[in-house]
């Protein structure tokens, strides 16, 4: 794994987040949510700062980060693509849509394209089952996505 050095500024941001939750260990998950939404992801170095601030072990923080699929230790693409793999989307062909994205972007689930533009992940039901299969790019929801329609979606971001 590449190790990164956090800037003074970033460290202070993390410290401020911890402080806003009174440096309480029980608030770890809230702290991680806030930190990830500020920094984009939670690499080991960030976890170390959080552990120190909340007065707990890095192992505990790591254990929590890796337990929950919402938290990520690698940076997402500029336009993160999530394909819904909920049951409603699955029975309406989500797998084919996923295959097509994989082929088009030449990456697999959990990876980011070399230019850092797109990353691919799966999620379970965004609650728009009526529009299955559903794909999200960032916060935008695309419904009734067909495998031959994904080029068009990607074009929106090129």
């Amino acid at each position, binding site marked *: 794994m590449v190790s990164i050095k956090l800037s003074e500024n970033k460290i202070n941001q993390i410290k401020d987040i911890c402080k806003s939750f009174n440096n309480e260990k029980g608030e770890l998950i809230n702290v*991680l949510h806030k930190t990830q939404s500020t920094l984009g992801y939670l690499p080991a170095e960030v976890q170390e700062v959080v552990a120190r601030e909340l007065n707990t072990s890095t192992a505990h923080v790591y254990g929590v980060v890796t*337990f929950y699929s919402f938290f990520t230790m690698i940076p997402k693409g500029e336009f993160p693509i999530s394909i819904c793999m909920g*049951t*409603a989307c*699955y029975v309406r062909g989500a797998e084919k849509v996923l295959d097509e994205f994989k082929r088009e972007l030449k990456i697999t689930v959990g990876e980011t394209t070399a230019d850092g533009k797109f990353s691919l992940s799966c*999620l379970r039901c965004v*609650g728009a089952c*009526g529009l*299955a299969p559903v794909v999200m790019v960032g916060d935008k929801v*695309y419904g009734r996505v067909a495998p031959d329609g994904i080029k068009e979606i990607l074009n929106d971001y090129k």
Partner: protein
Amino acid sequence: MAKIKKHLLVCGGTSCNALQNEVIASNLKETIREKGLNEEVQVMMTGCFGLCEKGPIVKVLHDNTIYIGVKPEDLKEIVEEHIINGNKVTRLLLDSDPNLKVHSKKQLRIALRNCGFIDPENINEYFACDGYLALGKVLESKDPQKTIDIIKKSGLRGRGGGGFPTGLKWEITSKSQADQKYVVCNADEGDPGAFMDRSILEGDPHSVIEAMAIAGYAIGATKGLVYIRAEYPLAIERLKTAINQSREFGFLGTDIMGSGFDFDIELRYGAGAFVCGEETALIHSMEGNRGEPTFKPPFPSVSGYLGKPTNVNNVETFANIPVIINKGAEWFAAIGTEKSKGTKVFALAGKINNVGLIEVPMGITLREIIYEIGGGIKDGKKFKAVQTGGPSGGCLTEVHLDTPIDYDNLIAAGSMMGSGGMIVMDEDDCMVSIAKYYLDFTVEESCGKCTPCRIGNKRLYEILEKITLGKGTLEDLDKLKNLSHVIKDTSLCGLGQTSPNPVLSTLENFWDEYIEHVTVKKCRSNQCKALMQYIIDPEQCVGCTACARNCPVNAITGERKLAHLINQDICIKCGACMEKCKFNAISIK
């Protein structure tokens, strides 16, 4: 200011959001203003109407008209013809879709009573629908036990999946002695393909807040926590707004309505782990730890959050409470079957015409749900199965279509109520693949604490995969069965104890499909790619080259005007060629 006479409601649920309902709402407001009607016509965004597939949706409240599939260019016509001249725009009417004719007739809305009817961001609208009246009644009675008795008598059972009697749970928590107790609302909604709780929180957040305060008073808790999935940003936003409004009006905070009772609510966020819907795991997660379940007893009602007695209820369970208090236990108990009272909200999805949210009285049959409310199977295909209970549930088939739906009947049929996901499958769905899909989910979501679930489910998945690849044997089917029972019997929490259900129920109901997969190596629904081949019939092929040009992996060779050939070693079975061939020369073998 003139009095508002007419209301136009625009559905603001997630599905409709994706269809740009905001553009509809703002254009509608603009049109109303242009016509100088903004003094008497109000446009507002509400929660989900439950017609997710037909959005965006506009409802005209005064004459209860629903327009479906509304486009920005339709708005002027709706305003001019309907609002001004009083003539409905027939081509957009809900009834113009023959599948939707009986959609609302068989439904009974209790938990969803206000969804799609009020503006969830405006507490005044909740007041207009008896909002916070129930809390007032409960506090006025000065008798927590009386409230518990009402809930007990109503027969309400938990809607989160287990079906535990709610009143009894409240009573146990109220009898636990402690300096601090908690009321927790479980809004984790992990079942993939279900969105009942989210719709309630988006459409009627105050009803859940009010119910939590009532529960707090009944059991003697002053603190409430909502554990909600971080993946539900709209629901979180609406809930936060509602909590603030409720505080402003004094329904949360100290000395509520002068009763001396204090109660407030905080939010805790889930982070994408299905097992956190299990109550002990949920509590560990709220404490900032990995969401691993622990053995029960002790039950949360005795020792839960921070070791204190904690009453965990599901969102939909809570949404029923205020109505029960207002209308009485007898009223509620008169609805439903002998042991399952009231209604249940289902997220109806899959191969069905009317995908969306429905609320039906307990005891309704699957046939009524699928063929009447759901409008039948999509594209005139043949019904095969319906999956209820998500990854913990099972499949019901043709023979169960007339069974009245309640907690006990579903279990007897080899499935379960679950939280309310209902996925309809047709002849194109391979049941082995469906079982594999659920096991894939379970393997990913198992917390790993206990061996049968962590390793056993992985083995189940591998056997299912082997079968879908055409490498399964009859022996594997026995293994599936035996292993399933071991996992069920020996897992620590509800996840492992129920995860083999999709396998067992498909084995039971679709034994012949399994047999076909392992003996003749055939998948009758053509879903298992390893068991099928795309072939070109040289007699039919005119050599137009359409297939070859569209094949993403260049698996098709052939000269123009001569019959083409698919190289089976290269073909990835995407089906593109078959779709593109205008001469029906390509088929699946």
